[in-house]
């Protein structure tokens, strides 16, 4: 398989996302709403907010990411394009990888870009912002991969949303602990190398295994 089909698929995914702008932006709007509501709920004291900021941004980012997972493969199952992935000698693994990349670009990247603003709103110390963005870069990629696997597994159930949320829970807990932890220790003036190293290791593991597992899970659902 050459690069041309891959590029065509990538272009189509992005075009579809632009056409469903409302749906594509929903996670970002949700994230923003949560970040605005937190100071209203717990009070605007800078000291309190600064302590909570890493965890709050991370929790909001992960929960908003969950909203988009349901749309990762389901539309393709419903309109019949999913089974076309297996026709002939197409590399389904390559297609799944493209889908992960485009999904991350649409749902993960905006979260990272908005993180400095979120940090400002919650009084996160400025020197912790680069770490927050780096940890979110690793975290959103992990969420896309783990979420994709779970979305593929729950494709057979009619309303898989609840099941998806329950199944992904144990997978994203370590991501949250190390991601929010990294930002918090940097805010306290310590080094986050251990946290980020573990997150990176998790990402490498997921990048290696999750696409393969996702292909198998998708295959189960078209039979």
């Amino acid at each position: 398989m050459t690069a041309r089909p891959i590029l065509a698929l990538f272009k189509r995914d992005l075009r579809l996302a632009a056409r469903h702008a409302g749906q594509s932006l929903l996670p970002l709007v949700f994230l923003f709403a949560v970040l605005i509501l937190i100071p209203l709920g717990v009070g605007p004291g800078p000291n309190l907010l600064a302590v909570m900021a890493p965890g709050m941004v991370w929790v909001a980012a992960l929960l908003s990411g969950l909203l988009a997972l349901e749309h990762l493969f389901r539309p393709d199952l419903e309109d019949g394009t999913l089974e076309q992935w297996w026709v002939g000698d197409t590399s389904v693994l390559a297609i799944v990888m493209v889908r992960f990349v485009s999904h991350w670009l649409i749902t993960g990247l905006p979260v990272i870009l908005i993180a400095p603003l979120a940090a400002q709103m919650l009084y996160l110390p400025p020197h912790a912002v680069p770490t927050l963005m780096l940890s979110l870069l690793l975290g959103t990629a992990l969420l896309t991969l783990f979420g994709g696997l779970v979305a593929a597994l729950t494709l057979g159930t009619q309303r898989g949303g609840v099941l998806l949320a329950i199944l992904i829970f144990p997978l994203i807990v370590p991501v949250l602990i190390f991601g929010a932890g990294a930002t918090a220790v940097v805010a306290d003036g310590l080094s986050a190398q251990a946290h980020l190293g573990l997150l990176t290791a998790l990402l490498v593991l997921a990048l290696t295994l999750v696409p393969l597992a996702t292909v198998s899970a998708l295959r189960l659902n078209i039979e």
Partner: protein
Amino acid sequence: MQTLIEAHALGFKRAGRLIFTPTTLTLHAGQCVVVSGANGSGKTTFLRLLAGILKPAAGAIERRAGVNFVGHQAAFKADLSCLENLCFQHEFYAGRDAGKLLVPAISAIEALSQVGLIKLMRRRAGHLSAGQKKRLGLAGLLVTQAPVWLLDEPYASLDESGAQQVDRLIDQHLRHGGGVVLSTHRRQPVLSVPALSCPIAAAAEAET
């Protein structure tokens, strides 16, 4: 005559049971094979096996040519226009089956005018009627280079003129060296070459 697909004693199991008696099929260039059988006998499953969507539980299959499959769903994105869908199809399938037998493809615009959808090319695929979607599915076949067309009920939801158009496109494709396997339960294809038959029989209950 070139062999496009050779399937030997293909079978598929659901819940550990063969759903139809193993079926053998050889498709040569310029041939049209009609897969026939009662409702639920496994026609669609057999076509999906030929396409590669399902893995056979028994038998072997060799695809020497690129394959196209059009199922009950036309497999188009409802929110993209007809033209965008076809352009994607054209690019996506171009060079997919490198090293296999191929036939020339035509452009998306040309394909749309052949199936009579040229005036609707900017319309979203989701806004087409069932028959128009079927036609768009046929146009999708024309923009790819795959010589083998696997058509599941191509005449369903088409009017008489639409059905004749399917026949015309199949005829033209056979002349260009393609091969067609289709399933139908009512209308038989009317072609310039006689279509071959491939009966599918549901497996007996006792057979496991």
